[in-house]
């Protein structure tokens, strides 16, 4: 009976959303405060009913209710509880329900915490948010109902795709969706501002925390997904430029640009239409991701069960939301008055470069991702695939200048900056970075020039960021106690920026080390076989069969020695899931800061293989790969610190006078 309650709750949420999509908007147009405030209750109502629907689905999964089709297709009674829970968002329908739930959570969050936002803007924003809700809830009810029953119910389920049965992956979609969908509220703010025809510094200030929150989740979600690919898939890599990875990366790139351009709008009242456009495009790219993943438009290792009818429905949604908002933009943006004026050398200009580079990078990823489709359409069915070589060749050269500018940007002052002065300050940093790179080259030798150049830039960014902080607290210029006082008084958003920028530098070490200096051996092994890789001597000891809760596995045992000393034992597994009839590779990893030794095994061919029990053993050494996860954590933490800054804290009373914020001259530069 609970599935029907869930289904019914979803319908009620739709009703709420329909009311919310009309009433507050009309109220804002007529100045009817009651109608505007109705958005508060309808948005809470949406969350309430969407939660009931989600809990109903969760309940069906937890109790393994095999009368529900979605549970049959994605769960199994023997599955560990964590993955039963994760199964509820492992399918197309379930993940869509999570999508809707998060969408309503963001709407309600704005209506509850956004007490400082003017009524009319809030009402319009929530109405726009409700339009999106209506689109997605109807999509669910008409094409992808997660509560469909089956009759007769089968004895047991078909199990969740075994690859998805991993703790990292259980958490990956919710975080990713928080990011994706979080940008919806920013989109709604942008559309509402276009309808109002007014964008100012205050608007940017209200929008920034939501952008930041979405960006943090998306960063964490992408990092977790990458971690999952690295640890679980056993492919020996953390990024593959797969279409589905790309569609999560594009909103991230755009969102990063938005985060920075919103600063300019907030502080200097400039870049207004650009910020609005970025807000629209960021969420549009999230929607595009949803469309690509669920329509089977491109081939990918991911992809849900594919159905062209669903694709058509989402395309319709896309046409209305993206097409509508961009048309609105084309109509209203030209009349927005330009704001603060700035010189070509200034922080505004620095952030403009940041934005241009990030937008170009997004364009490159978008083009590379969709090029196979364009090519096929234009040549009448010929196919090709765009792989890592294209992305590496096009994306990396674009991003490296950004890293260089990132080192300088925070030193620039608003309006007009003194570039020679900045270079003067950074001279020592530049020299030290070159020396450090030379030292690394001396120790490592070998490897391409681009690798060393990237290392140089990463060191540059890290040290310039550090330097910027020491300049702020006047370290060594004033007595230490004074510096400490200054350090304690710096706004959290400053620490947030420094931490995030340094985080990117740290992650870069990981990116570079593990792609340029990676070594790989693929060998055929029998018990006793020895392999040498990156200074380690690895011995394959043998194989045993082990049994897990819903799988059987062949577990290999490897002994790793270095210079005659014992280092570690590795146990890579090749698992077989009888219910889902599929195999997974469970790689074994010895992880250190210096690098990961990564082993995976696979049986060659089938039982008929005449090789006498020999296995394929793949061993990789990925230097510095852990820096990626540390750097990502720093990005997330930096975002969090910035979000917790008093200035942005939603609903917190403003410091100082109650005067309406018009300019930010008093607020310390970020």
């Amino acid at each position, binding site marked *: 009976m609970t599935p029907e309650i869930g289904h019914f709750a979803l319908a009620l949420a739709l009703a709420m959303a329909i009311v919310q999509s009309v009433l507050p908007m009309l109220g804002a147009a007529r100045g009817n405060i009651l109608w505007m405030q109705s958005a508060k209750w309808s948005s809470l109502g949406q969350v309430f009913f969407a939660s009931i629907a989600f809990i109903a689905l969760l309940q069906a999964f937890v109790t393994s209710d095999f009368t529900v089709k979605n549970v049959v297709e994605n769960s199994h009674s023997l599955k560990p509880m964590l993955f039963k829970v994760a199964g509820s968002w492992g399918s197309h329908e379930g993940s869509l329900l999570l999508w809707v739930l998060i969408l309503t959570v963001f709407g309600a969050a704005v209506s509850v915490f956004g007490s400082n936002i003017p009524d009319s803007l809030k009402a319009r924003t929530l109405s726009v948010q409700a339009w999106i809700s209506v689109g997605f809830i109807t999509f669910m009810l008409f094409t992808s109902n997660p509560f469909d029953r089956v009759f007769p119910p089968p004895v047991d389920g078909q199990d969740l795709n075994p690859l998805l049965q991993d703790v990292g992956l259980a958490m990956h979609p919710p975080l990713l969706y928080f990011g994706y969908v979080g940008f919806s509220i920013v989109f709604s703010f942008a559309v509402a501002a276009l309808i109002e025809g007014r964008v100012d510094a205050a608007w940017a200030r209200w929008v920034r925390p939501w952008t930041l929150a979405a960006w943090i989740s998306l960063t964490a979600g992408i990092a977790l997904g990458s971690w999952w690919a690295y640890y679980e898939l056993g492919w020996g890599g953390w990024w593959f430029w797969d279409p589905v990875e790309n569609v999560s990366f594009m909103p991230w790139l755009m969102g990063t640009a938005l985060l920075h351009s919103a600063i300019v709008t907030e502080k200097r009242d400039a870049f207004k239409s650009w910020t609005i456009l970025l807000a629209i495009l960021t969420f549009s790219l999230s929607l595009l991701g949803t469309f690509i993943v669920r329509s*089977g438009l491109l081939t990918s290792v991911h992809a849900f069960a594919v159905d062209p009818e669903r694709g058509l429905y989402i395309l319709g949604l896309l046409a209305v939301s993206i097409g509508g908002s961009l048309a609105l*933009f084309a109509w209203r943006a030209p009349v927005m008055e330009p704001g603060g004026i700035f010189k070509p050398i200034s922080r505004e200009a620095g952030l403009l470069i940041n934005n241009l580079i990030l937008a170009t990078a997004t364009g490159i990823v978008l083009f590379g991702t969709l090029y196979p489709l364009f090519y096929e359409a234009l040549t009448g069915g010929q196919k090709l695939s765009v792989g890592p070589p294209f992305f590496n060749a096009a994306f990396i050269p674009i991003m490296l200048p950004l890293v260089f500018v990132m080192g300088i940007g925070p030193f620039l002052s608003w309006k007009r900056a003194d570039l020679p002065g900045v270079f003067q300050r950074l001279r020592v940093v530049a020299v030290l970075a070159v020396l450090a790179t030379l030292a690394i080259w001396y120790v490592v030798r070998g490897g391409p020039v681009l690798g060393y150049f990237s290392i140089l830039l990463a060191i540059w960014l890290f040290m310039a960021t550090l330097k910027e902080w020491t300049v702020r607290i006047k370290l060594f210029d004033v007595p230490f106690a004074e510096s400490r006082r200054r350090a304690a008084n710096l706004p959290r958003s400053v620490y947030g920026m420094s931490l995030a920028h340094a985080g990117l530098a740290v992650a870069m070490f990981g990116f570079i080390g593990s792609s340029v200096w990676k070594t790989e051996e693929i060998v055929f092994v029998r018990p006793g076989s020895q392999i040498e890789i990156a200074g380690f001597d690895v011995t394959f000891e043998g194989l045993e069969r082990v049994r897990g809760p819903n799988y059987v596995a062949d577990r290999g045992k490897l002994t790793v020695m270095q210079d005659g000393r014992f280092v570690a034992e590795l146990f890579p597994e090749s698992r077989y899931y009888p219910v889902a009839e599929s195999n997974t590779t469970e790689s074994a990893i010895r992880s250190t800061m210096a690098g990961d030794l990564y082993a995976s095994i696979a049986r060659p061919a089938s039982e008929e293989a005449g090789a006498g029990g020999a296995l394929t053993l793949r061993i990789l050494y990925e230097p510095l790969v852990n820096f990626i996860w540390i750097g990502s954590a720093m990005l997330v933490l930096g975002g969090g610190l910035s979000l917790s800054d008093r200035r942005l804290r939603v609903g917190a009373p403003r410091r100082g006078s109650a005067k309406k914020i018009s300019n930010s001259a008093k607020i310390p530069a970020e």
Partner: protein
Amino acid sequence: MTRALALIPLLVAVVFGGFFLWGLDPDRNPNDIPSVLISQPAPEFTLMDVEGLATPSFERADLVGNPGPVIVNVFASWCVPCRAEHAVLTELVESEGQRLFGINYKDKPEDATRWLAELGNPYEKIGADSTGRAGIEWGISGVPETFIVGPDGTVLYRYVGPVVGDNAVEKFREALVQAGALERGVSG
């Protein structure tokens, strides 16, 4: 900001939308990789033999005038799926009497020789395609790929990826049956 500039995002979105609409055609399967070679004569190519290996090389002329269809397999020692596939191909040669030609794609001769010494050599002839030129002629998208070539030198079938696992082997055997290289119902 001028009006024309503000229109650009919308126009770009509309163009993208047009492509998406086209892409949703239910008859279109993005996973399907067609071969322009099917029922075309096999491409012109000449290969050297793999240095240090006794197996002779072959060229296009060797694919014409055979009594029955032959299998042409593109492989490399650095390719892991090829290892997996190797057992299946060996089985086809040893128990089914199929004739197998190999194109050793972008490989070092010593690696290829060691690989074959380790796993066994089911290939009748092997050409060394160290430059990848023949691979381009055959239009391969990756390694391994396997073709069936008719007695007149016509490409009858192409399989992309390793012929491994019951499904793939079944598909490939079916293709051999269709080509007349295998009798139906004979199981390995």
